[in-house]
């Protein structure tokens, strides 16, 4: 009987936490997407609750610290990184869009990481976003250095980060079928 009651209590708390995480994630996405300030009471309260140490440990170790807004509110654009290897004479040796992966599934993991470049093009301009941008630069540098290490005779790697903009359905139907690559940033390593 005690076990049943304990299970029911845990079940209720577990479901409440899943709902709170989902609600918090929903509000965060909504505010970011429509560029609203995150001043909502529900958002503030749920955020404080989820950052409480014991709750944070629980949701992190149960995998429930994720919202369910996959491909939402809208499907966001993707990013493509072009790594160009340049030799001592300044000539282009090779060009690649991917690190030296051998398995296709690795590309899924890599493309998940590329979503960090959204912080480069949007968001609030504060100290946090500044730190985030420095972090993104550091990650980009490291990935480029890894590629540099695989090519012999490479003096420098040029990395261009592009936003991949496929024409909308409306534009495509009007005859504009060419995807655009919008340069977000460029780094030489």
């Amino acid at each position: 009987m005690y076990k049943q009651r304990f299970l029911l209590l845990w079940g209720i708390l577990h479901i409440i936490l899943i709902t709170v995480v989902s609600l918090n994630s929903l509000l965060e996405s909504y505010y970011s997407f429509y560029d609203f300030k995150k001043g909502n009471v529900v958002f503030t309260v749920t955020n404080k609750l989820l950052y409480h140490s014991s709750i944070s440990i629980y949701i992190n170790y149960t995998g429930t610290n994720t919202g369910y807004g996959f491909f939402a509110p809208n499907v966001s654009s993707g990013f493509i990184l072009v790594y160009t290897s340049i030799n001592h004479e300044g000539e282009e040796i090779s060009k690649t869009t991917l690190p030296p992966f051998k398995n296709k599934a690795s590309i899924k993991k890599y493309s998940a990481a590329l979503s960090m470049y959204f912080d480069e093009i949007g968001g609030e301009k504060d100290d946090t976003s500044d730190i985030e941008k420095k972090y993104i630069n550091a990650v980009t540098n490291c990935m480029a250095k890894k590629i540099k290490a695989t090519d012999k005779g490479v003096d420098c790697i040029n990395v261009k980060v592009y936003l991949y903009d496929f024409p909308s359905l409306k534009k495509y139907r009007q005859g504009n079928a060419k995807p655009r690559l919008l340069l977000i940033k460029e780094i030489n390593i």
Partner: protein
Amino acid sequence: MFKRLYKVDNQLSSFAFFRIMTGVLSIVSVLIIRDDIHLFYSDDPIVPNDLLELKTREFIVTLPEIVAFVQDLGWVSFTFNHFILVFIGLNLLLIIGFCSRMSAILVLFSQIAIVKSAVIFSYGFDYFLSMSLFYCCIFPVGQNFSIDSLIWKYSKPNGIYLSIFRIHICIAYFFSGLFKALGYNWLNGESIWKAVHLPYVNTDFSIPLDWMADFPYLIIAIGVFTILIELLHPLLVSFRKTRDLCVMATILMHVGIAVILNLWLFSAIMITWNLTAYFLPESTNQKLARKVSLNVST
């Protein structure tokens, strides 16, 4: 109402299926990146561990920390690859159902250590795998089709486990539908159009999809269908008449996600969740009870 929560018969075979699938998918998630695993999880990954760990919460025990700990204990040659082998071994124990609960706890701890040590490379599947492993720790997953069931005698578990699992799925789909409904591109077809044309998507079969532009209403219908099936999921699975149809439509949606977006593991784990939650094999008693009730009503 609470009595109904506990009255779910024959959940054990479903949970056995859930345990086996979770273990299998966990192993597959490592094996499908076997040639590149050093680029994500090693002492010299594509992004240095120090940098990756900046995105990890302080209380998470990460893979580099575990490796360093084992090395400090005296096993100096212990590497990331050894840990991955241990991880696969623990998953095999989970699959055969040997000390299922303990195996699940160890696999969950290891999986969190692996994923969180390179959190920027994680995506939806990793979170659902963590949740699945967590449920394997709590639910009676080792009471059927397992070594445990040959050794121990278990009393019949109550149905609260399955009820919690079903509520979780309903919340997940409902919020997923709500997220999409808040955007404006899911209702005009642009989201589906964009999703299938994203970089690194539709590369496994390279299915030509540009023809869809000639049938905009089809794309709009797919978008609306996705929102409806997710948003109304809690309602549709509540009634026996609509449940099977809803689950089949959801599985169809995940098959589409697997084939076109190439999110195979994510789709596989979602299909596993749906099958576990709703496609319970009926016991003879249940079948008999249903037949009797049908005969009485006619």
